[in-house]
């Protein structure tokens, strides 16, 4: 159920930007998900099919870039993966560590089809 509410917010965000750009269709959403953000999995694509039906974004493919959670040691400065953390820095043993990456949960960009006077290639 969690993904349904997220899919709705994602759709309204997508449609707002797509309509502003005069899109005829949205082909792809590029979503960045950090390990420390809300949990999102493939069921989001499933809900997308349900809630985006009948909109210009119904055929859009959801593309996720996962960012692993990372911590940085205040003792030796090394950055390491949260999943390697077991109460202390794996390198020097310091307990003074803090979150350094993995907090993202955002719609980075969308790819649209529409009238335009230039041939932007989305791969550029």
């Amino acid at each position: 159920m969690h993904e349904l509410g997220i899919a709705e917010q994602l759709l309204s965000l997508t449609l707002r930007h797509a309509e502003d750009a005069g899109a005829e269709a949205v082909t792809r959403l590029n979503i960045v998900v950090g390990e420390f953000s809300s949990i999102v999995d493939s069921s989001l694509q499933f809900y997308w099919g349900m809630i985006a039906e009948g909109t210009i974004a119904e055929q859009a493919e959801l593309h996720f870039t996962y960012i692993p959670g990372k911590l940085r040691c205040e003792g030796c400065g090394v950055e390491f993966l949260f999943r390697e953390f077991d109460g202390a820095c794996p390198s020097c043993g310091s307990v003074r560590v803090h979150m350094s990456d993995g907090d993202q949960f955002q719609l980075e960009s969308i790819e649209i089809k529409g009238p335009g006077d230039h041939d932007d290639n989305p791969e550029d």
Partner: protein
Amino acid sequence: MTTTRKINVEEKILSANDRIAQDIRQQLADAGVFAINIMASPGAGKTSLILRTVEALKGEMRIAAVDGDVVPVDVEKIATQGIQVELINTGGNCHLDANMMASVMPRLDLSGIDLLIVENIGNLICPAGFDLGTDARIVIASVPEGDDKPYKYPAMYKGADVLLLNKIDYLSLQDFDVEYFRRGVEALNEGVTFFPVSCRTGEGLDAWFDWLRQRVREKRATVAQAK
């Protein structure tokens, strides 16, 4: 001609939720109401903590509660304390969001409330992402759940303003390394306010009550100053 192009958005996906939460925060600020969002896994002691808190503080401040649940069992328990309790029937949803919270706001007489307690749905994953417009996010962990929870559910611990470790009366019965638990939390959320408590024996609760008293006083003072 038709072209394909990429549009940069770079917006938080939950920005719609956050905007509604901001409206709620403003309503609470205008009225000088201090609001807390209580989150925990099922059975960690959300309702027990609320009952203890209301019992201790209802003589000195006006309290109302909002309860997210499918069945009104907890609402009825809390209502026995003689305070207003509003149910948000979540229909099986796994968390409260700002929109659900907004739907219950008109039923609350904010001018007659000092402390608003929101009991979120028992879940350690989903509620973390959704700001409800409250002043403080309270996470309750409990000893029987084990000391590794911050390592497994980082999102919940990362966003907490206050962390209560409940059921400390079980510490002697179980291998629970409080320091290991705290290091996991501190890595995600440095300097988080921490209260070890037992809702059963009452141990440690006075520090939590004092923290709440202080916050409620400060919030009320901001409105008194503005007038």
